[in-house]
């Protein structure tokens, strides 16, 4: 997989976020949403490349999928890895913990954007990608380096597995 210097990517992402803030008259929430949306679109496309490059290692369940993202996905694309932890009882919820992320190099969040989830695009990517493998998930940040936490913690929550048929109430 071809690599490039992170800077170009990092700066482009940063500039994108800034532009979105301008487009949305500084409305941080709107930007969070839009980042997620863009991420989702990316995720949908990106998953193929991932599966192709990652020697087609299919993951059977959510647990595996999470591991796959943490260990291979992030490594392959962003060159970082995350650890998976904080599983809930029925293995439908977990945290990806990253202590570093090229997207936030150089970034310092001004006070007025303290509610901005700068890397929200990543959430969207996971959402999109997993949906492509029949897992509807929610994804959001619990901890964020930019907001003074020591690491990134993204919460992944499995909503449903769309492949299997499921009985709706009534």
């Amino acid at each position: 997989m071809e690599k490039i210097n992170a800077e170009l990517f990092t700066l482009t992402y940063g500039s994108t976020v800034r532009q979105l803030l301008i487009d949305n008259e500084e409305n941080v929430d709107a930007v969070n949403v839009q980042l997620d949306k863009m991420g989702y679109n990316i995720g949908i496309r990106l998953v193929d490349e991932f599966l192709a490059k990652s020697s087609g290692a299919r993951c059977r369940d959510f647990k595996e999928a999470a591991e796959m993202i943490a260990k291979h996905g992030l490594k392959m694309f962003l060159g970082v890895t995350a650890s998976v932890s904080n599983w809930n009882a029925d293995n439908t919820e977990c945290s990806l913990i990253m202590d570093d992320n090229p997207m936030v190099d150089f970034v310092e969040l001004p006070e007025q954007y303290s509610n901005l989830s700068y890397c929200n695009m990543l959430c969207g990517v996971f959402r999109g990608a997993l949906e492509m493998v029949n897992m509807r998930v929610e994804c959001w940040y619990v901890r964020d380096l930019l907001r003074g936490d020591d690491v990134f913690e993204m919460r992944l929550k499995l909503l449903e597995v769309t492949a299997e048929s499921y009985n709706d109430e009534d």
Partner: protein
Amino acid sequence: MAPRREVAESCLEFLYIELVQSYERKDAECAEKGDGRASRAALESIGFQVGQQLAERYTIDRARFADHLEVIKFICKEFWSEIFRKQVDHLKTNRHRALFVLQDDRFRWLRHLSLPAEQTSNTEAVAKYLVFPCGLIKGALSSFGVNCEVTAEISEDARKPTQCSFEVRIK
């Protein structure tokens, strides 16, 4: 400076494609004022900022440019290869050095572009993807003190789908 780390090139490509398309969608949504000027401006200014930042970054400890020509040369060589992994193929200029044409026969960012079928004219579709690079170049040049307009053209030649040229018009 942070350790010079690497990411997959596709990260950039995906982001970049999504950027263009999301602005396309935005235009589509608000069709009434959908001349797309606004979103083109937005795309360009994204590129512009990145261009400025990279200009600073790529010229650290480099001898100061004596004139515009040196600047343009830098763009064609170092700057281009940093970003597009290759140098500009041809550089043309007019006598007064107020106009430069940078031609790239295999513009990297058009490689993986699979164009939607319903696109009637290839060029116009591709054009959208060249706004960002234009901003990039313009940003870099401006931070070297060269105020200019940058426009891009795609070759009509179907055999060279990724050939395009950037026209730098110095104010």
